[in-house]
Protein backbone atom coordinates (compact mmCIF):
# COMPACT_ATOMS: atom_id res chain seq x y z
CA UNK A 1 0.00 0.00 0.00
CA UNK A 2 1.36 3.36 -0.83
CA UNK A 3 1.23 6.13 1.66
CA UNK A 4 -0.20 9.55 1.79
CA UNK A 5 1.22 12.64 3.44
CA UNK A 6 -0.25 16.05 3.97
CA UNK A 7 3.10 17.64 4.76
CA UNK A 8 5.08 19.07 1.90
CA UNK A 9 8.66 18.10 0.96
CA UNK A 10 9.38 21.55 -0.46
CA UNK A 11 8.22 24.91 0.91
CA UNK A 12 4.91 26.31 -0.33
CA UNK A 13 4.96 28.81 -3.15
CA UNK A 14 6.30 26.80 -6.09
CA UNK A 15 4.19 26.72 -9.29
CA UNK A 16 1.00 24.65 -8.94
CA UNK A 17 0.45 21.99 -11.63
CA UNK A 18 -2.81 22.23 -13.56
CA UNK A 19 -4.02 20.51 -16.71
CA UNK A 20 -3.65 22.28 -20.05
CA UNK A 21 -6.55 24.29 -21.50
CA UNK A 22 -7.36 21.27 -23.67
CA UNK A 23 -7.36 18.99 -20.57
CA UNK A 24 -4.88 16.50 -22.03
CA UNK A 25 -3.33 15.65 -18.66
CA UNK A 26 -6.45 16.21 -16.50
CA UNK A 27 -6.94 12.46 -15.77
CA UNK A 28 -3.37 12.25 -14.46
CA UNK A 29 -3.71 15.17 -12.04
CA UNK A 30 -7.21 14.12 -10.95
CA UNK A 31 -5.84 10.61 -10.34
CA UNK A 32 -3.12 11.92 -8.05
CA UNK A 33 -5.74 13.84 -6.05
CA UNK A 34 -7.54 10.53 -5.47
CA UNK A 35 -4.28 8.78 -4.53
CA UNK A 36 -4.03 6.90 -7.81
CA UNK A 37 -1.31 6.88 -10.42
CA UNK A 38 -2.74 6.82 -13.94
CA UNK A 39 -0.64 6.32 -17.08
CA UNK A 40 -1.80 6.14 -20.68
CA UNK A 41 -1.91 2.68 -22.24
CA UNK A 42 -3.18 2.18 -25.75
CA UNK A 43 -6.09 -0.28 -25.80
CA UNK A 44 -5.28 -1.25 -29.40
CA UNK A 45 -1.57 -2.08 -29.23
CA UNK A 46 -1.00 -2.12 -25.44
CA UNK A 47 1.96 0.24 -25.47
CA UNK A 48 2.49 2.51 -22.46
CA UNK A 49 2.89 6.23 -22.95
CA UNK A 50 3.92 9.01 -20.54
CA UNK A 51 3.62 12.04 -20.65
CA UNK A 52 0.22 11.90 -22.21
CA UNK A 53 -0.59 12.63 -25.82
CA UNK A 54 -3.78 12.60 -27.88
CA UNK A 55 -2.49 9.74 -30.00
CA UNK A 56 -0.68 6.46 -29.46
CA UNK A 57 2.86 6.92 -30.75
CA UNK A 58 3.00 3.33 -32.02
CA UNK A 59 -0.36 2.54 -33.70
CA UNK A 60 -1.84 6.05 -34.02
CA UNK A 61 -5.10 5.19 -32.26
CA UNK A 62 -6.49 8.37 -30.73
CA UNK A 63 -7.18 9.01 -27.04
CA UNK A 64 -5.14 6.26 -25.35
CA UNK A 65 -6.83 4.84 -22.24
CA UNK A 66 -5.71 5.79 -18.75
CA UNK A 67 -4.65 2.76 -16.70
CA UNK A 68 -3.96 2.62 -12.99
CA UNK A 69 -0.41 1.64 -12.13
CA UNK A 70 1.04 0.56 -8.79
CA UNK A 71 3.25 3.47 -7.70
CA UNK A 72 6.57 1.74 -7.30
CA UNK A 73 9.68 1.78 -9.40
CA UNK A 74 13.41 2.30 -9.30
CA UNK A 75 15.70 5.29 -9.42
CA UNK A 76 16.91 5.94 -12.97
CA UNK A 77 18.77 9.15 -12.19
CA UNK A 78 18.93 11.85 -9.54
CA UNK A 79 20.15 15.31 -8.68
CA UNK A 80 20.79 17.24 -5.49
CA UNK A 81 19.79 20.86 -6.00
CA UNK A 82 21.62 23.55 -4.04
CA UNK A 83 20.97 26.78 -5.89
CA UNK A 84 17.53 28.24 -5.16
CA UNK A 85 15.84 29.12 -8.46
CA UNK A 86 12.73 30.43 -6.74
CA UNK A 87 12.20 32.78 -3.82
CA UNK A 88 10.24 30.03 -2.04
CA UNK A 89 13.45 27.97 -1.89
CA UNK A 90 15.73 30.68 -0.46
CA UNK A 91 17.44 29.47 2.73
CA UNK A 92 15.83 26.05 2.26
CA UNK A 93 19.05 24.11 1.68
CA UNK A 94 19.61 21.22 -0.70
CA UNK A 95 16.84 18.93 -1.87
CA UNK A 96 16.74 15.77 -3.94
CA UNK A 97 14.93 15.21 -7.22
CA UNK A 98 14.82 11.72 -8.69
CA UNK A 99 13.83 10.29 -12.03
CA UNK A 100 11.96 7.04 -11.37
CA UNK A 101 11.29 4.41 -14.00
CA UNK A 102 8.29 2.15 -13.61
CA UNK A 103 9.23 -1.25 -15.02
CA UNK A 104 5.68 -2.66 -14.90
CA UNK A 105 4.37 0.25 -17.01
CA UNK A 106 6.67 0.07 -20.01
CA UNK A 107 9.48 1.70 -18.02
CA UNK A 108 7.93 5.15 -18.34
CA UNK A 109 9.69 7.69 -16.13
CA UNK A 110 8.49 10.33 -13.69
CA UNK A 111 10.23 13.08 -11.78
CA UNK A 112 9.61 13.51 -8.06
CA UNK A 113 11.46 14.22 -4.84
CA UNK A 114 13.21 11.54 -2.79
CA UNK A 115 11.89 11.83 0.75
CA UNK A 116 14.22 11.65 3.71
CA UNK A 117 17.61 13.22 4.37
CA UNK A 118 18.39 15.54 1.46
CA UNK A 119 22.11 14.84 1.96
CA UNK A 120 21.75 11.05 1.74
CA UNK A 121 23.77 9.09 -0.81
CA UNK A 122 21.53 8.12 -3.72
CA UNK A 123 21.94 4.90 -5.69
CA UNK A 124 20.78 4.53 -9.27
CA UNK A 125 18.73 1.33 -9.49
CA UNK A 126 17.39 1.51 -5.92
CA UNK A 127 13.74 0.48 -5.46
CA UNK A 128 11.34 3.21 -4.42
CA UNK A 129 7.65 3.44 -3.60
CA UNK A 130 5.34 6.32 -4.26
CA UNK A 131 3.92 8.63 -1.61
CA UNK A 132 1.00 10.89 -2.53
CA UNK A 133 1.56 14.40 -1.25
CA UNK A 134 -1.74 16.27 -1.05
CA UNK A 135 -2.17 20.03 -1.02
CA UNK A 136 -5.91 20.29 -0.28
CA UNK A 137 -5.94 23.90 0.88
CA UNK A 138 -3.90 25.33 -1.94
CA UNK A 139 -5.74 27.32 -4.61
CA UNK A 140 -6.30 25.34 -6.76
CA UNK A 141 -5.80 22.15 -4.72
CA UNK A 142 -3.40 19.60 -6.18
CA UNK A 143 -1.42 16.47 -5.37
CA UNK A 144 2.13 15.35 -6.15
CA UNK A 145 3.71 11.92 -6.30
CA UNK A 146 6.84 11.67 -4.17
CA UNK A 147 9.15 8.69 -3.64
CA UNK A 148 10.89 6.99 -0.77
CA UNK A 149 13.28 4.07 -0.60
CA UNK A 150 11.57 0.69 -0.11
Amino acid at each position, binding site marked *: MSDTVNSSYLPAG*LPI*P*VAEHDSLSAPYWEGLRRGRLLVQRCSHCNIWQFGPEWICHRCHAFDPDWTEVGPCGRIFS*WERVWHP*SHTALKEHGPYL*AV*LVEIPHAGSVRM*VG*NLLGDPRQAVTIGADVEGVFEHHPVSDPPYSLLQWRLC
Partner: protein
Amino acid sequence: MAPARTERTLRGRVAIIGIGETDYYRHGASPDPEFKLALKAILTACEDAGLDPREIDGFASYSDDRSDASRLAAALGTRGLRAATMQWGGGGGGCCAAVANAAASIVAGLADCVVVFRSLAQGQYGRFGQTTGIETISGEKAYLMPYGVLAPPQRFAMRVRRYMHEHGVRQEALRAIALASYHHAQSNPRAVMCGKALDAEKYDVSRWIAEPFHLYDCCMENDGAAAIVLVPAERAADFRNKPAYLLGAAVGSGYRTGAMPHNSPLYASASFDTVAPDLYRMAGLGPSDVGVVQSYENFTGGVVMALAEHGFFKPEDANEFLTPENLIAPSGRLPLNTSGGNLAECYMHGFELVLEAVRQVRGTSVNQVRRNDVAMVIGGPMVTPVSNLLLGSEATL
Protein backbone atom coordinates in the same frame (compact mmCIF):
# COMPACT_ATOMS: atom_id res chain seq x y z
CA MET B 1 14.44 16.56 -71.66
CA ALA B 2 14.42 17.58 -68.02
CA PRO B 3 17.85 18.58 -66.71
CA ALA B 4 19.51 16.09 -64.37
CA ARG B 5 18.83 16.94 -60.77
CA THR B 6 21.89 18.08 -58.92
CA GLU B 7 22.80 16.52 -55.60
CA ARG B 8 20.77 17.95 -52.74
CA THR B 9 23.40 19.40 -50.43
CA LEU B 10 24.66 22.60 -48.88
CA ARG B 11 28.27 21.47 -49.27
CA GLY B 12 30.42 24.19 -50.79
CA ARG B 13 27.42 26.21 -52.00
CA VAL B 14 27.47 29.04 -49.47
CA ALA B 15 30.19 31.19 -47.89
CA ILE B 16 30.30 33.21 -44.69
CA ILE B 17 31.86 36.52 -45.71
CA GLY B 18 31.27 38.70 -42.66
CA ILE B 19 31.09 38.36 -38.89
CA GLY B 20 30.26 40.94 -36.23
CA GLU B 21 29.32 41.24 -32.63
CA THR B 22 28.59 43.98 -30.11
CA ASP B 23 30.52 44.35 -26.90
CA TYR B 24 29.48 41.51 -24.61
CA TYR B 25 28.01 42.41 -21.23
CA ARG B 26 26.97 40.73 -18.02
CA HIS B 27 23.21 40.21 -18.01
CA GLY B 28 21.42 43.46 -17.48
CA ALA B 29 24.53 45.55 -18.14
CA SER B 30 23.92 46.48 -21.79
CA PRO B 31 23.50 50.23 -22.27
CA ASP B 32 21.54 49.45 -25.45
CA PRO B 33 18.15 47.85 -25.90
CA GLU B 34 18.04 44.44 -27.53
CA PHE B 35 16.95 45.57 -31.00
CA LYS B 36 19.73 48.15 -31.13
CA LEU B 37 22.21 45.42 -30.23
CA ALA B 38 20.94 43.36 -33.15
CA LEU B 39 21.35 46.31 -35.52
CA LYS B 40 24.88 47.01 -34.28
CA ALA B 41 25.98 43.39 -34.72
CA ILE B 42 24.52 43.22 -38.23
CA LEU B 43 26.18 46.48 -39.31
CA THR B 44 29.50 45.28 -37.88
CA ALA B 45 29.22 42.03 -39.84
CA CYS B 46 28.47 44.00 -43.04
CA GLU B 47 31.43 46.29 -42.39
CA ASP B 48 33.64 43.26 -41.83
CA ALA B 49 32.54 41.86 -45.19
CA GLY B 50 32.66 45.16 -47.05
CA LEU B 51 28.97 44.87 -47.89
CA ASP B 52 26.29 47.55 -48.17
CA PRO B 53 23.69 46.50 -45.55
CA ARG B 54 20.94 47.48 -48.00
CA GLU B 55 21.93 44.41 -50.02
CA ILE B 56 20.79 42.04 -47.28
CA ASP B 57 17.66 40.25 -48.47
CA GLY B 58 17.13 37.70 -45.73
CA PHE B 59 17.29 37.22 -41.97
CA ALA B 60 17.48 33.98 -40.00
CA SER B 61 17.48 33.38 -36.27
CA TYR B 62 16.36 30.92 -33.59
CA SER B 63 15.02 30.51 -30.07
CA ASP B 64 12.20 32.99 -30.71
CA ASP B 65 14.56 35.93 -31.14
CA ARG B 66 12.55 39.08 -30.55
CA SER B 67 14.34 41.16 -33.22
CA ASP B 68 11.83 40.62 -36.00
CA ALA B 69 13.08 40.22 -39.58
CA SER B 70 10.62 42.72 -41.07
CA ARG B 71 11.48 45.36 -38.50
CA LEU B 72 15.18 44.81 -39.18
CA ALA B 73 14.61 45.14 -42.92
CA ALA B 74 12.64 48.35 -42.43
CA ALA B 75 15.18 49.78 -39.99
CA LEU B 76 18.11 49.03 -42.28
CA GLY B 77 16.38 50.11 -45.45
CA THR B 78 17.12 46.82 -47.16
CA ARG B 79 15.82 46.95 -50.69
CA GLY B 80 13.71 43.85 -50.48
CA LEU B 81 13.09 41.03 -48.01
CA ARG B 82 13.17 37.58 -49.59
CA ALA B 83 13.82 35.18 -46.71
CA ALA B 84 12.77 35.27 -43.05
CA THR B 85 13.26 32.01 -41.15
CA MET B 86 12.89 31.21 -37.47
CA GLN B 87 14.13 27.86 -36.21
CA TRP B 88 11.76 26.10 -33.81
CA GLY B 89 13.06 25.13 -30.39
CA GLY B 90 14.69 26.77 -27.45
CA GLY B 91 18.13 27.05 -26.00
CA GLY B 92 21.05 26.99 -28.37
CA GLY B 93 19.72 24.05 -30.34
CA GLY B 94 19.09 26.40 -33.24
CA CYS B 95 22.42 28.24 -33.39
CA CYS B 96 23.63 26.09 -36.30
CA ALA B 97 20.16 25.36 -37.70
CA ALA B 98 19.62 29.08 -38.30
CA VAL B 99 22.76 29.06 -40.46
CA ALA B 100 21.51 25.95 -42.27
CA ASN B 101 18.14 27.59 -42.92
CA ALA B 102 19.83 30.70 -44.29
CA ALA B 103 22.10 28.60 -46.48
CA ALA B 104 19.13 26.58 -47.73
CA SER B 105 17.36 29.83 -48.68
CA ILE B 106 20.39 30.81 -50.75
CA VAL B 107 20.92 27.42 -52.39
CA ALA B 108 17.22 27.20 -53.25
CA GLY B 109 17.37 30.59 -54.95
CA LEU B 110 15.04 32.32 -52.52
CA ALA B 111 17.64 34.85 -51.37
CA ASP B 112 21.15 36.05 -52.18
CA CYS B 113 22.52 37.65 -49.05
CA VAL B 114 21.25 36.41 -45.71
CA VAL B 115 22.16 37.58 -42.22
CA VAL B 116 22.01 35.08 -39.37
CA PHE B 117 21.99 36.62 -35.91
CA ARG B 118 21.05 36.32 -32.25
CA SER B 119 20.33 39.26 -29.96
CA LEU B 120 19.73 39.00 -26.26
CA ALA B 121 19.30 41.66 -23.58
CA GLN B 122 18.29 39.85 -20.45
CA GLY B 123 18.25 43.04 -18.45
CA GLN B 124 15.48 44.29 -20.70
CA TYR B 125 13.45 41.10 -20.91
CA GLY B 126 14.29 39.00 -17.87
CA ARG B 127 16.61 36.13 -17.21
CA PHE B 128 16.40 32.50 -18.22
CA GLY B 129 15.42 30.20 -15.39
CA GLN B 130 13.59 32.93 -13.55
CA THR B 131 10.62 31.09 -12.09
CA THR B 132 9.32 33.26 -9.28
CA GLY B 133 5.92 34.76 -10.03
CA ILE B 134 4.50 31.75 -11.88
CA GLU B 135 1.35 30.67 -10.03
CA THR B 136 0.14 27.70 -12.04
CA ILE B 137 1.93 25.65 -14.66
CA SER B 138 0.80 23.23 -17.40
CA GLY B 139 2.43 20.89 -19.86
CA GLU B 140 5.96 19.57 -19.50
CA LYS B 141 6.94 21.94 -16.72
CA ALA B 142 3.96 20.86 -14.59
CA TYR B 143 5.69 17.50 -14.11
CA LEU B 144 8.92 19.21 -12.99
CA MET B 145 8.48 22.62 -11.38
CA PRO B 146 6.40 21.58 -8.34
CA TYR B 147 9.31 19.25 -7.46
CA GLY B 148 11.84 22.08 -7.62
CA VAL B 149 13.12 21.13 -11.08
CA LEU B 150 12.78 24.70 -12.27
CA ALA B 151 15.77 26.23 -14.01
CA PRO B 152 17.93 24.81 -16.83
CA PRO B 153 20.71 23.32 -14.62
CA GLN B 154 18.07 21.37 -12.72
CA ARG B 155 16.41 20.26 -15.94
CA PHE B 156 19.66 18.81 -17.34
CA ALA B 157 21.55 17.50 -14.30
CA MET B 158 19.75 14.15 -14.17
CA ARG B 159 20.49 13.48 -17.84
CA VAL B 160 24.19 14.06 -17.22
CA ARG B 161 24.18 12.05 -13.99
CA ARG B 162 22.69 9.09 -15.88
CA TYR B 163 25.34 9.40 -18.60
CA MET B 164 28.12 9.49 -16.01
CA HIS B 165 26.60 6.40 -14.40
CA GLU B 166 26.28 4.45 -17.66
CA HIS B 167 29.78 5.21 -18.90
CA GLY B 168 31.86 5.79 -15.77
CA VAL B 169 32.50 9.45 -16.61
CA ARG B 170 34.18 11.31 -13.75
CA GLN B 171 33.78 14.89 -12.57
CA GLU B 172 37.28 15.64 -13.89
CA ALA B 173 36.02 15.25 -17.46
CA LEU B 174 33.45 17.99 -16.88
CA ARG B 175 36.09 20.09 -15.17
CA ALA B 176 38.45 19.85 -18.14
CA ILE B 177 35.80 21.44 -20.37
CA ALA B 178 35.35 24.36 -17.99
CA LEU B 179 39.11 24.81 -17.66
CA ALA B 180 39.61 24.87 -21.44
CA SER B 181 36.94 27.56 -21.92
CA TYR B 182 38.34 29.75 -19.15
CA HIS B 183 41.89 29.24 -20.39
CA HIS B 184 40.95 30.45 -23.86
CA ALA B 185 38.98 33.40 -22.50
CA GLN B 186 42.08 34.80 -20.80
CA SER B 187 43.57 35.81 -24.15
CA ASN B 188 40.25 37.00 -25.63
CA PRO B 189 39.57 40.66 -24.91
CA ARG B 190 35.90 40.20 -25.94
CA ALA B 191 35.40 37.59 -23.22
CA VAL B 192 33.35 38.60 -20.20
CA MET B 193 35.57 36.31 -18.09
CA CYS B 194 38.85 37.69 -19.51
CA GLY B 195 40.98 38.40 -16.43
CA LYS B 196 39.08 35.88 -14.30
CA ALA B 197 41.23 32.77 -14.50
CA LEU B 198 40.01 29.36 -13.36
CA ASP B 199 42.10 26.48 -12.09
CA ALA B 200 41.25 22.98 -10.92
CA GLU B 201 41.22 23.90 -7.25
CA LYS B 202 38.92 26.88 -7.75
CA TYR B 203 36.58 24.62 -9.71
CA ASP B 204 36.62 21.90 -7.07
CA VAL B 205 35.76 24.23 -4.19
CA SER B 206 33.12 26.18 -6.12
CA ARG B 207 29.56 25.75 -4.91
CA TRP B 208 27.23 23.15 -6.30
CA ILE B 209 24.38 24.49 -8.40
CA ALA B 210 22.77 21.10 -8.93
CA GLU B 211 24.99 18.03 -8.59
CA PRO B 212 26.86 17.09 -10.79
CA PHE B 213 27.15 20.76 -11.85
CA HIS B 214 29.44 23.08 -9.97
CA LEU B 215 29.10 26.81 -10.57
CA TYR B 216 31.76 26.63 -13.30
CA ASP B 217 29.94 23.88 -15.18
CA CYS B 218 27.16 26.35 -15.94
CA CYS B 219 27.07 28.96 -18.69
CA MET B 220 26.84 32.66 -17.97
CA GLU B 221 23.87 34.85 -18.77
CA ASN B 222 24.72 37.87 -20.89
CA ASP B 223 23.58 40.75 -23.04
CA GLY B 224 24.81 41.27 -26.58
CA ALA B 225 24.28 40.39 -30.21
CA ALA B 226 26.23 38.57 -32.90
CA ALA B 227 25.71 38.19 -36.64
CA ILE B 228 27.18 36.62 -39.75
CA VAL B 229 26.57 37.28 -43.46
CA LEU B 230 26.08 34.48 -46.00
CA VAL B 231 26.28 34.71 -49.79
CA PRO B 232 26.41 32.12 -52.60
CA ALA B 233 29.88 30.56 -52.86
CA GLU B 234 30.40 32.03 -56.34
CA ARG B 235 30.20 35.55 -54.87
CA ALA B 236 32.64 34.86 -52.02
CA ALA B 237 35.65 36.34 -53.80
CA ASP B 238 33.90 39.72 -54.15
CA PHE B 239 34.39 40.50 -50.47
CA ARG B 240 37.42 41.49 -48.47
CA ASN B 241 37.88 38.55 -46.06
CA LYS B 242 38.92 34.97 -46.56
CA PRO B 243 35.61 33.12 -46.91
CA ALA B 244 34.55 30.26 -44.65
CA TYR B 245 32.53 27.78 -46.68
CA LEU B 246 29.71 25.70 -45.33
CA LEU B 247 30.72 22.05 -45.73
CA GLY B 248 27.73 20.56 -43.99
CA ALA B 249 24.87 21.17 -41.60
CA ALA B 250 22.30 19.01 -39.89
CA VAL B 251 19.29 19.61 -37.67
CA GLY B 252 16.89 17.53 -35.61
CA SER B 253 16.94 14.68 -33.12
CA GLY B 254 16.33 10.94 -32.99
CA TYR B 255 13.29 8.78 -32.25
CA ARG B 256 10.94 10.43 -29.72
CA THR B 257 13.63 12.66 -28.23
CA GLY B 258 10.82 15.07 -27.46
CA ALA B 259 8.91 12.59 -25.27
CA MET B 260 8.38 14.59 -22.14
CA PRO B 261 8.88 14.69 -19.19
CA HIS B 262 12.31 13.00 -19.31
CA ASN B 263 10.87 10.09 -21.32
CA SER B 264 13.08 10.14 -24.43
CA PRO B 265 14.07 6.51 -25.13
CA LEU B 266 17.73 7.48 -25.45
CA TYR B 267 17.78 9.52 -22.25
CA ALA B 268 21.50 9.79 -21.49
CA SER B 269 22.22 11.61 -24.73
CA ALA B 270 22.92 15.05 -26.16
CA SER B 271 20.40 14.31 -28.99
CA PHE B 272 22.99 13.97 -31.77
CA ASP B 273 22.55 10.23 -32.37
CA THR B 274 21.07 10.89 -35.83
CA VAL B 275 22.24 14.48 -36.34
CA ALA B 276 25.99 13.82 -36.15
CA PRO B 277 25.93 11.12 -38.88
CA ASP B 278 23.81 13.41 -41.07
CA LEU B 279 26.42 16.16 -40.76
CA TYR B 280 29.36 13.93 -41.66
CA ARG B 281 27.41 12.45 -44.59
CA MET B 282 26.72 15.85 -46.13
CA ALA B 283 30.28 17.07 -45.60
CA GLY B 284 31.87 13.82 -46.77
CA LEU B 285 34.12 14.06 -43.72
CA GLY B 286 34.67 12.24 -40.45
CA PRO B 287 35.77 13.19 -36.95
CA SER B 288 39.47 12.78 -37.78
CA ASP B 289 39.17 15.55 -40.40
CA VAL B 290 38.07 18.12 -37.81
CA GLY B 291 40.79 20.35 -36.41
CA VAL B 292 38.85 22.48 -33.94
CA VAL B 293 35.44 22.29 -32.28
CA GLN B 294 33.13 24.86 -30.77
CA SER B 295 30.56 22.95 -28.72
CA TYR B 296 27.63 24.68 -27.02
CA GLU B 297 28.01 24.51 -23.28
CA ASN B 298 24.84 25.25 -21.42
CA PHE B 299 26.47 22.81 -19.00
CA THR B 300 29.78 20.98 -19.36
CA GLY B 301 28.15 17.56 -19.14
CA GLY B 302 26.30 18.15 -22.39
CA VAL B 303 29.62 18.79 -24.14
CA VAL B 304 30.95 15.40 -23.00
CA MET B 305 27.95 13.69 -24.58
CA ALA B 306 27.95 15.84 -27.72
CA LEU B 307 31.65 15.24 -28.47
CA ALA B 308 31.24 11.49 -27.96
CA GLU B 309 28.19 11.43 -30.23
CA HIS B 310 30.24 13.18 -32.91
CA GLY B 311 32.74 10.33 -32.72
CA PHE B 312 35.72 12.10 -31.17
CA PHE B 313 36.00 9.40 -28.50
CA LYS B 314 33.98 6.52 -27.10
CA PRO B 315 31.97 7.40 -23.99
CA GLU B 316 34.07 4.92 -22.01
CA ASP B 317 37.19 6.87 -23.00
CA ALA B 318 35.84 10.28 -21.97
CA ASN B 319 38.01 10.51 -18.84
CA GLU B 320 41.17 9.82 -20.81
CA PHE B 321 40.32 12.14 -23.72
CA LEU B 322 38.89 15.08 -21.82
CA THR B 323 41.94 16.63 -20.19
CA PRO B 324 42.81 20.33 -20.27
CA GLU B 325 45.95 19.63 -22.33
CA ASN B 326 43.96 17.86 -25.05
CA LEU B 327 41.41 20.66 -25.32
CA ILE B 328 43.63 23.71 -25.55
CA ALA B 329 44.81 25.66 -28.62
CA PRO B 330 47.06 25.81 -30.54
CA SER B 331 47.93 22.14 -30.67
CA GLY B 332 45.87 20.10 -28.23
CA ARG B 333 44.39 16.91 -29.59
CA LEU B 334 41.04 18.63 -30.12
CA PRO B 335 41.05 22.34 -29.25
CA LEU B 336 37.62 23.15 -27.83
CA ASN B 337 35.72 26.41 -27.41
CA THR B 338 38.68 28.55 -28.36
CA SER B 339 36.98 31.88 -27.67
CA GLY B 340 35.84 30.86 -24.19
CA GLY B 341 32.35 29.99 -25.43
CA ASN B 342 29.20 30.23 -23.38
CA LEU B 343 31.10 29.61 -20.16
CA ALA B 344 33.64 32.38 -20.42
CA GLU B 345 33.36 34.52 -23.59
CA CYS B 346 29.67 35.32 -23.70
CA TYR B 347 26.44 33.40 -23.54
CA MET B 348 25.29 34.70 -26.90
CA HIS B 349 23.09 31.63 -27.01
CA GLY B 350 25.83 29.79 -28.86
CA PHE B 351 26.07 32.18 -31.76
CA GLU B 352 29.47 33.41 -30.56
CA LEU B 353 30.62 29.85 -31.31
CA VAL B 354 29.73 30.21 -34.99
CA LEU B 355 31.74 33.44 -35.24
CA GLU B 356 34.71 31.75 -33.57
CA ALA B 357 34.60 28.86 -36.03
CA VAL B 358 34.76 31.40 -38.87
CA ARG B 359 37.76 33.08 -37.22
CA GLN B 360 39.52 29.73 -36.93
CA VAL B 361 39.03 29.03 -40.65
CA ARG B 362 40.23 32.55 -41.48
CA GLY B 363 43.23 32.14 -39.18
CA THR B 364 42.37 35.17 -37.05
CA SER B 365 41.38 33.69 -33.68
CA VAL B 366 43.16 34.92 -30.58
CA ASN B 367 43.61 31.23 -29.83
CA GLN B 368 44.40 30.13 -33.33
CA VAL B 369 44.78 26.39 -33.87
CA ARG B 370 47.25 24.86 -36.30
CA ARG B 371 44.78 22.50 -37.98
CA ASN B 372 42.20 25.03 -39.08
CA ASP B 373 40.96 23.85 -42.47
CA VAL B 374 37.86 22.24 -41.00
CA ALA B 375 36.03 23.71 -38.00
CA MET B 376 32.96 22.24 -36.31
CA VAL B 377 30.18 23.92 -34.36
CA ILE B 378 27.80 21.89 -32.20
CA GLY B 379 24.61 23.59 -31.06
CA GLY B 380 22.39 22.83 -28.10
CA PRO B 381 23.17 19.53 -26.44
CA MET B 382 20.31 17.76 -24.65
CA VAL B 383 17.46 19.75 -26.22
CA THR B 384 15.47 19.04 -29.39
CA PRO B 385 15.96 19.98 -32.14
CA VAL B 386 19.74 20.30 -31.99
CA SER B 387 22.00 21.28 -34.89
CA ASN B 388 25.60 21.36 -36.05
CA LEU B 389 27.85 22.80 -38.75
CA LEU B 390 31.12 22.08 -40.50
CA LEU B 391 32.96 25.05 -41.98
CA GLY B 392 36.02 24.89 -44.16
CA SER B 393 38.53 26.89 -46.15
CA GLU B 394 38.57 26.99 -49.94
CA ALA B 395 41.11 24.15 -49.89
CA THR B 396 38.48 21.80 -48.45
CA LEU B 397 35.97 22.26 -51.28
